[in-house]
């Protein structure tokens, strides 16, 4: 049965229909040389080449992420200057943080992932944009700047721990202030 016929048939379903699909990709990748019960792999040289490419890109990561940090700073500044559009800026910050939390670790900057994840969580509800939240956003942006300006790769050793500890302190401070409000 052709793919088109199968798709046409898929419009009406009696109960359950199973589609057993011929493994064309395995044939393509092995030239028919890997049997139905067998598995193929990726040549080690190919993985090494891909890792080299990956590492080359990771070297440029700090410059690239700087543009995201600038965007965060700009949105933070707008939170201060124009409180009436604050929820929009917090929503933008939330989206940027989502991007950063996924990328930092990939390029050898897990601290950016830590900061990004924390910022993502605390900006989850963009309608709640108190002054405390704005202060907390600033603490995150400052931490990220310190990581990138200092090229604090990996876990960052002592400096990394200090940066995370100061973020924890900021979270405690602003959460406590919120509780008092």
């Amino acid at each position, binding site marked *: *049965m052709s*793919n088109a016929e*199968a*798709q046409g*048939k*898929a419009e009406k*379903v*009696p*109960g*359950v*229909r*199973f*589609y*057993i*699909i*011929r*493994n064309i*990709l*395995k044939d*393509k*990748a*092995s*030239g028919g*040389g*890997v049997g139905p019960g*067998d*598995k*193929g*792999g*990726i*040549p080690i040289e*190919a*993985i090494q*080449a*891909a*890792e*080299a*490419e*990956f590492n080359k*890109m990771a070297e440029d*990561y700090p410059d*690239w992420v700087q543009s995201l940090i600038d965007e965060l700073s700009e949105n933070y500044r707008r939170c201060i200057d124009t409180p009436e559009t604050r929820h929009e800026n917090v929503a933008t910050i939330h*989206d940027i943080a*989502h*991007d950063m*939390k*996924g*990328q*930092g*670790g*990939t*390029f050898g900057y*897990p601290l950016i*992932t830590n900061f990004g994840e924390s910022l993502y969580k605390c900006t989850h509800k963009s309608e709640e944009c108190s002054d405390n939240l704005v202060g907390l956003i600033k603490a995150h942006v400052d931490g990220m700047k310190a990581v990138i300006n200092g090229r604090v790769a990996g876990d960052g050793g002592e400096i990394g721990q200090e940066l995370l500890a100061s973020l924890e302190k900021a979270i405690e401070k602003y959460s406590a202030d919120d509780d008092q409000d």
Partner: protein
Amino acid sequence: MADYDFGLFSCLVVDDSSYMRTLMSASLRAIGVGNVKTVDDGGQGIDFLQLVTSDPMKAGMQNVDIIFSNWQMSPVDGMMLLRWVRRHKESPNRFIPFVMVTGYADREKVREARAMGATEMLAKPFSVVNLGQRLLQVVNRPRKFVHTNKYFGPDRRRNQKEIPPGKDRRKNDERNIEVVHV
């Protein structure tokens, strides 16, 4: 174990971050994938898949073998693209392997993507090895597709374990199961 050659593979990478697009396409090419196209969001992904069908010369590929798509994008995100691929009548291939790349790691989100018919999930941050593993998973362990009135996508039971007596909640018996070979 024999080594694969992905030179004849055509992959589509969908990501709104130019950096991630470059990273993903460069890594796939380095692993040996012959043809990689990148687009900026789900909407462009749909346009490209339609172009491959209508004008493969212009698209630069005859077909798309695997889609690697970021989840969170705007205006059309990865889930909307996946829904279109799996359910839309204009989809060129509703069975296409779809790898959802995402920073969402919580179980609920994974369940959501699986319920929409994602073939594999690739969590960010990822490494070249993680990317290669997903590629191999798609090639080495393809799953049959299941179509019910509520679901269309790869079989969500990866391991076919025997279900203990009385625990089988499936409502269909052999009389209303149809098997189609594609």
